[in-house]
C-alpha cells in the first residue's frame, strides 16, 4: 500500500524553539512550562475497530487497549464502545453489545478446546488437533451408522439427520457460504446460525 500524505506542513513545538516562540516574544517566560514536563510521563492507549460477535447485525465497536503493542494484548482491553462511524450501527449497541467488556474479561470465557469424557464430571483441556480429530471421528461414525440414502419409496434423498451444526454469529458471507456447502455436502439437514437463536 502506498502512503498518501494529504498535507505536509508541520510545526516544531519543542523546548528548543520556545525561546524564539511568540509566547516568549510576548513577554511570557516559557521556562516554567519547559521545566514542568519533568513531572509528567506519557501514557499510551490504542483504539482498534472491530465487530460485535453476538449477532448477525455486526455492530461496529471500538476496543480500547493499553500496552506496548504486543500482538496478544487482548487482556489489556479496558473499554469498549459503539463505533459512531459504523454505517450500520452508528455508535449504538444493544445491552449485550454494551456489556462486551465483561464478555472479553470473563473468567469463564472459553479460550481452548475442552472435553468431558462420558462417565466423568471433569472438563479436560485438549489440543486443537486432538479436538478436531475427535469431532471428525464422531461425525464419521455417526454418519456411517445413520446416513439415509433412500426413502421408503426408493427415492434418493442422501440425508443425515442425527447430527446438526450451529454456525457462528459474526461470520462473513464467505464463511457462511462455506459452512453451508460443507454441511449440506455431508447430507446434513439440521443447520442453523447462532445469530437467529
Amino acid at each position: 500500500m502506498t502512503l498518501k500524505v494529504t498535507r505536509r506542513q508541520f510545526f516544531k513545538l519543542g523546548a528548543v524553539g520556545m525561546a524564539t516562540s511568540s509566547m516568549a516574544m510576548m513577554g511570557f517566560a516559557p521556562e516554567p512550562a519547559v521545566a514542568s514536563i519533568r513531572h509528567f510521563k506519557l501514557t499510551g492507549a490504542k483504539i482498534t475497530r472491530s465487530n460485535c460477535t453476538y449477532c448477525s447485525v455486526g455492530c461496529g465497536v471500538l476496543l480500547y487497549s493499553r500496552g506496548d503493542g504486543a500482538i496478544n494484548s487482548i487482556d489489556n482491553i479496558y473499554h469498549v464502545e459503539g463505533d459512531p462511524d459504523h454505517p450500520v450501527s452508528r455508535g449504538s449497541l444493544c445491552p449485550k453489545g454494551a456489556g462486551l467488556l465483561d464478555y472479553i474479561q470473563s473468567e469463564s470465557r472459553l479460550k481452548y478446546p475442552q472435553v468431558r469424557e462420558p462417565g466423568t464430571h471433569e472438563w479436560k483441556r485438549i489440543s486443537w488437533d486432538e479436538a478436531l480429530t475427535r469431532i471428525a471421528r464422531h461425525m464419521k461414525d455417526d454418519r456411517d451408522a445413520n446416513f439415509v440414502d433412500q426413502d421408503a419409496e426408493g427415492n434418493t434423498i442422501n440425508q443425515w439427520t442425527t447430527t446438526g451444526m450451529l454456525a457462528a454469529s459474526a461470520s462473513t458471507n464467505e464463511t457462511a457460504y462455506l459452512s453451508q456447502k460443507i454441511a449440506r455436502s455431508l447430507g446434513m439437514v439440521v443447520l442453523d446460525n447462532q445469530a437467529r437463536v
Partner: protein
Amino acid sequence: MNHAYGNAPMGVMDPPSVVLPKQEHFAQRAQRLCDLSERIEPLRDFLAFMAQLSRAQQRALERNTPAWLPEPDAFVLALEHGMPPLGTQALCRDIDFHSELTALLDGLDLHIGEAQRPLLDTLRKLPKEEIDRLAQEVLEARPGPEASRGLMPLIAAALQVAWLRLVRTLPHPPKRPTAEARSLCPCCGSLPVASVIQIDSKRSGVRYLQCGLCATQWYLERSKCSVCDQSGKLDYLSLEDEAGERLLPTQAETCGDCHSYLKIMPCEFDAHAEPLADDLASLALDLLLAEEKQYRRSGFNPLLIVGE
C-alpha cells in the same frame, strides 16, 4: 417515532458533517482559558492573557462594524460546488481585519500586564503594509520574522474575528470536504488546530476537526490519521502526573505511518474542553513529544507560533 414504554432512542444517529461556530464562541473559549489558567500553574499568566484576548475578540465581534462585508449571495456558487466559500487566499485582500484589530487592541488596553503593553503600542504604530505582511504569514501558517513573532498572535486574533464573522453569515454549512481535502477546513481552507470528540446526543462519540482560524468543526472518522488517512499505527498519548492522574483531557493522536500527531480532546473527560484553548494549555504534551523525536506536530495554533 413514539414509544409507549420508556425512552427508546429517537432513531439512528445522523451527525452533521460540518458545524459552524456559535456567535458566543470566543466568550466560551475565554471562559475555558480562564479556568485552565488557574489549573496549569506554569502557564498561568500566558493563559490568563489569552483569556483576555478571547474576551476582547468577543467584544470586537459584537461591537465592531467592518468596512467590507460580502454580498449576501456571494457564497452560493462556492457552496454548490464544494469549494471553501471563505478561502483565505481569495479573501485576504478584501476582508477588513484592520478594524477588527483596532477594536481588539482597544478592548485589551485595560486588561493586560505591563510586560505586554509595548506589543499594543508597537502594533498601533505599525504601517498597514507590515501588518498585511504578518497577516499573510499567519494565514499561510508560517513562523514569520523572529523580531515580529510576538505580534503575530494578536494579528491572528483579529483574523479569527474577521473570519468567524463571515462564517456566521453563511446561509448554511458547506458540505463535507472531498477525500483529498478532508483535513482542511471546509469554510476557509485552513489547517485544523486539533480535534474533539463530542458527547451530545446528536453526535455522541463523533470526532470533529476544528479550524484554527474560523473555529468551524468538520467530521472525520475516529481512529484515523488526519494527515495520511492511515489507521494501523495510531496511539493515543496523554500526560499523567506522578500519581498517575490525567492532567488534561487532551491526548496526542500519533501516527506511526507518517510520524505526525494531532491533539484530540475527548469531551467525555471534560465537557468544557475547547480545542484551541486546551491545545495551548497542554503545551507540556508537545514538549514531551518533541523530546521523544518521533512525531511532528500537524496542528496549527495561530495563538502560539514557533520558528522553523
